[in-house]
Each structure stands twice: as structure tokens, then as C-alpha cells.
């Protein structure tokens, strides 16, 4: 029991007639990075607001570090580090003033906890006198993370921290999260980016207020039931409508410039697809068998959910 950091059971939240959370349950162990992966509207923000004591669940209950999110909200508010999805610092205050303010309201000593944010804050320290509103997206997120960390929280809850941030800053941000995890802080991250899932220790795939699957990224990928092929062509759209007519195909989806085709049985292989395409006068394509990514799994779960 002492290994569990966050625990949710049967959480339900409705906004009027909209069902934001439809009874989700999960466990987050101490000191791990747990990712809630899902598109906008999956219920991630609602879930995080319940965990940060900002919203009351309509049903179910949740605890963070053993404290009940409804009854013990006063205590929880001292041990949580929360970074909302929207940039929520004071844009008219400078970087330094923001940090001082958040240290102040948590009665934290900046110099005492500086080691926690050193790696992050050092990068924005040259702009200490700049107003927060004038920072770039990546730097804003670093500042927000610094402010969320300055009181040395036991659990860090980050709602889409990398949305709207460039690829380099995203990578840096994740490197920081992994360092923080090594300091023993439990981290909950919500993100719509599937490629960030593999950086988490464990993930939950969310859609329409449900958790479709959860586990380590490897477990989720291993559970993918189909053989998967990637086809590259300069006539992607024609190829897509053609391949969907082939028997023995489970699904075909666009993935960037490529098409990912999953087979409905083990008999469908490279050769069969190749023959099918050639028999329809399709010559210019590159075909290979690939191992699935989280996104393939996500789409597969989504389809299963829709079918059922």
C-alpha cells in the first residue's frame, strides 16, 4: 500500500449532460512517471482537476499519497505541484518575481530547494528580468515547471506541459522530468502526443472519459494483436482506398506520409499485400513489416471500443 502514490476508483464527472469521466480507475506507484495519453476531450484535464482538489467527482473516490482528494484537500494543496494546461503564471511579472511569488505562497525557501529546479531554471536565468509574458513557449513551460517545483512537491501533476512547444524544447522538457523522477518525485503527465508515451514508465490510454488500456508502453505494444505493415507511396490516397478493399486486412490508416496496414490474420504477409497491389496495377511503393507504436495501439483500441 505504501508504494501507491495516486489511486483512483470509479471516478465519474459530468458537466450537465456531457460525460467527462465515465468511471475510471487507476493506480500510480510512487516515483514513476505515469502518462495519461489521449486526444482533446478525453477527460484528462477533468481527471487532473479532481486529483488536484479543484473539482469534486460526482462518484468514485481518489487519494493522493494516502490523502483523500475531497476530505483532505487542505493538506493535499501543500504537497502537490500543479501545472495547468494553460500557461498560468503572471505575465506582467518577471521570471524572477514569479518564482519568488510561488515560493512565497508555499512558504518555501528558494535557495533550499534550488537543487530541484537548478537544471531547468539555469536555462531561463539569463532572462530573469524579463516579463513572463514575453518568453517563448518552451521557456514559459520551464518557468511554470520551476514554479510548480519550488516547494518540493511530493507529486507533480502536469496537464499537457508540452502542447504548443517546439520539438527541441519538448525533448529537453522530458529529460528534465526523468531527472525529477530520479529525485523521487511521482509525476503524472497528460499529453495528446503518442510519441511521448514511451517516455513514461506506465501509461493509460484515454478516450471519451474512459481508460481503454493501461500498463507499461512495452506491455501495451506487446498486446497489439495484429501483424503491421507500412506502405510508402506517392499516391497515398488512392493506395488507401485500394488497400481497404483487400481481404485479410483489419485496418489501414494514414500515418504521416505512410499507410499503416494491420492484418486480420497471420496469413496476410508482405507477399500477399504486394501481389494484391500489383494485381491492381500499383507499382511504385515501398512495403515493410513494422512493429507497432503506441499510436497504432491507440487506434486499435479506439476501433474496438467503437465496435463494442
Amino acid at each position, binding site marked *: 500500500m505504501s508504494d501507491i502514490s495516486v489511486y483512483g476508483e470509479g471516478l465519474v464527472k459530468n458537466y450537465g449532460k456531457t460525460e467527462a469521466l465515465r468511471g475510471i480507475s487507476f493506480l500510480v506507484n510512487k516515483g514513476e512517471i505515469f502518462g495519461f495519453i489521449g486526444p482533446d476531450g478525453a477527460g484528462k484535464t477533468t481527471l487532473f*482537476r479532481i486529483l*488536484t*482538489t*479543484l*473539482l*469534486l467527482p460526482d462518484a468514485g473516490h481518489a487519494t493522493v499519497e494516502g490523502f483523500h482528494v475531497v476530505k483532505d*484537500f*487542505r493538506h493535499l*494543496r*501543500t504537497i*502537490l505541484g*500543479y501545472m*495547468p494546461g*494553460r*500557461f*498560468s*503564471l*503572471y*505575465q*506582467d*511579472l518577471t521570471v524572477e*518575481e514569479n518564482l*519568488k*511569488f*510561488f*515560493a*512565497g*505562497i*508555499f*512558504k518555501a525557501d528558494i535557495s533550499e530547494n534550488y537543487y530541484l529546479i537548478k537544471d531547468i531554471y539555469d536555462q531561463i536565468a539569463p532572462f530573469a528580468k524579463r516579463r513572463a509574458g514575453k518568453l517563448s513557449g518552451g521557456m514559459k513551460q520551464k518557468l511554470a515547471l520551476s*514554479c510548480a517545483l519550488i516547494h518540493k512537491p511530493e507529486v507533480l501533476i502536469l496537464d499537457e506541459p508540452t502542447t504548443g512547444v517546439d520539438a527541441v524544447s519538448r525533448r529537453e522538457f522530458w529529460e528534465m522530468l526523468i531527472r525529477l523522477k530520479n529525485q523521487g518525485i511521482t509525476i503524472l503527465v497528460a499529453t495528446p502526443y503518442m510519441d511521448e508515451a514511451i517516455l513514461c514508465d506506465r501509461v493509460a490510454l484515454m478516450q471519451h472519459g474512459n481508460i481503454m488500456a493501461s500498463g507499461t508502453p512495452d506491455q501495451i505494444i506487446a498486446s497489439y494483436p495484429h501483424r503491421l505493415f507500412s506502405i510508402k507511396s506517392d499516391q497515398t490516397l488512392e493506395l488507401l482506398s485500394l488497400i481497404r478493399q483487400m481481404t485479410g486486412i483489419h485496418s489501414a490508416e494514414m500515418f504521416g506520409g505512410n499507410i499503416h496496414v494491420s492484418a486480420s490474420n497471420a496469413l496476410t504477409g508482405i507477399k500477399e499485400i504486394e501481389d494484391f497491389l500489383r494485381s491492381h496495377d500499383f507499382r511504385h511503393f515501398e512495403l515493410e513489416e513494422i512493429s507497432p507504436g503506441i499510436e497504432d495501439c491507440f487506434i486499435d483500441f479506439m476501433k474496438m471500443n467503437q465496435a463494442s
Partner: protein
Amino acid sequence: MKQFVIKEFLHIFRDVRSMVILFGMPLVQVLLFGYAITNEVKDVRVSVIDQSYDYASQAVVNKLFASGYFLKGEHINSTREIEESFRKGKNKMVVVIEPGFAGKLETGQQPTIQLIADASDPNTANLLVSYASGIINAYSRELVPAGNIPVIVPESRMLYNPSLMSVYMFVPGIITILLMLVSAMMTSISIAREKELGTMEVLLVSPLKPFQIVAGKVMPYVLLSFINAGSILILSYYIFNVPINGSLLLLLGETILFILLALSLGIFISTISNNQQTAMMLSMFALMLPTILLSGFIFPIENMPAVLQWFSLIMPPRWFITIIKSIMLKGSGIEYFWKETLILAGMTLIFILASVKKFKIRLA
């Protein structure tokens, strides 16, 4: 808590709009009301139709024009021309003296003087008529020895503002309006801004208690509003020579009470509005307009329909204006307005309790 207050000051000083409202407004308002929007009577064009033209009627006419309020306007010969001269704007008032004025006075009859004023501007017309009647009454008292009173003399002395300086009346009103504006509107907007920008979400997930958030918000405004009130007093004292006849300490004390009331109102408004726009509109309609219209600042409460008179009872500014007028102009002490003070204190308490109760410790 200390950090919170520092942050609040930084917000105010870095926002041009706040700074203008806070420091430009008092200056502009005082000067505007003091100089431009005046309903003083000075050099108004008045014409006389003297149908008796005897020593007594001429004496009255001389008294009128010697007062300094009136200037000789376009000359008219008969009462038929009055309307046209009003229409052309040549005269604001016409004084008609009936024939045989001196004779009637001597025989103890009551001669009449007709005062016809252009009431398209009712406030000015009122003032003109009362000024003129005042002058005529004074004259009739001069004529008739005490004990034998042939002319009925209604005494209408202008108490506390003998020269009817409008600026004396406006200063208490301006102080009230500005305190309302600065305190209530600015606090309600600044709390609503935290909600709108999402920073309230972060504040809530912190050990800060609602009381601390509210107090941290309010403290800078108490100080700034107080400085504001002080600067208006200084401005009006030195530029318009508005007297402070009563105790300055008492005046400042009552001002602080009113500031607290306005702030608690502002907080209350912010607890029921989710963005700056709503907070602004609510403060505008719920506070500013009633403050100006129903507090007795511009329109006398006694002249309002009964419903509005009752309504004005719940207007905090009404009570505060009464208090500061008493202190500044009459120089009276707390024994004369402890009731008003108590009402203000009660309202403050109600609003503070209501806003603490309504303050959301969670989102939505």
C-alpha cells in the same frame, strides 16, 4: 502573504489602465466638477419690466443688479416679449414689477413682483428664482420696521453654503464616487482577472486560504484608495478652498470605513463574476450609476419618487455623503451621524460575510 501584496502592487504599477484609473481619475474628476460642471449663478442675463417706475421699484432693481449674480439682459417693454427673449436665449429670467409698487407699499398692501424664469434648465431656473426672491425679501425687511410686517417674508437662507458654491457640494460626492470606483471596481476586476487568466487555478492548489487571497488582494487597494481620498481633499482644499470644518481624524476614519465597505462590495462582485468583463459591467451598473444617481449627490433624494427613495436607503454612498458633508461643511461630530456610521459598518460586515461564504475553494 507578503509576497502576495508585493505581487499585487506590481500588477497595479505595471498596468497603464489601472494607473490611469487610480491616479489620473481623481485629478480629472475634481477639476472637472470644480470648474466645468458648475451650477453656480454668476452673470446671468436678466431683464426687468418695471411697470411702476417709482423710487421703491427702482431700489429693488438696483439691489438685484448690484448683487453680482445678474447682468442686464436684452431690454424688453412688455410681458408679451418675454417668451421670445427666452427663446432667443437673450434672457434667463424676467422680473415684472406691478404698477403702483411704492404706493401699495406705503398703504400697507402687498405689492407683488413676478419672477419669470426660463425653466428649460430647471436647476438654474430654481437657483435664479431663489436668489432673486432672497434679494427682494432682504429689501422688504429693510423697508419695514420690525413688528409691522406688511409683506410676508419667507426666510430662505442658504445654510452651510451661503454663496451656494457648487464645488462644496461636489467634493463629498466625488470622493464617494472615486472610492467606489477605485476600491470596488479595481478589486473585483483584479480577482476576476485571476480567474480569467487561469492563475486562480494555481492559487487554489496552494496552501493559501481564501481569507489570505482576499486580504492580499485588498490591502494594496486600501492604501491606494486612502491616498486617493487624501489627494482629493488636498486638491479641493487648496484649489477650491473647500473647508474642512470638522475633525480631520474623524473624516479619515469614516473614509477608511467606506473604503472597506467598497472593497468588500468589490470582492462580493468578483465572487459572482468569472471574467473581467462581467466584473466591470457589474461594478458599473451595480455601483457607479446608483452612486451617481441615487445617493443624493446630484439629484436630491427628497425629490425622488418614493420607490427610489426606499431604494436609496440601501445605497452605501448615500450614508457616506451625509457623513462627510456633516464633517466637512457643518463641522459636526460623530454624535450627529453615529447612525449612518453604524449602517455603513453593518453593510461592510454583511458583504464580507457574504463574500467569504461565496468564495469558491474549488473551480466551478
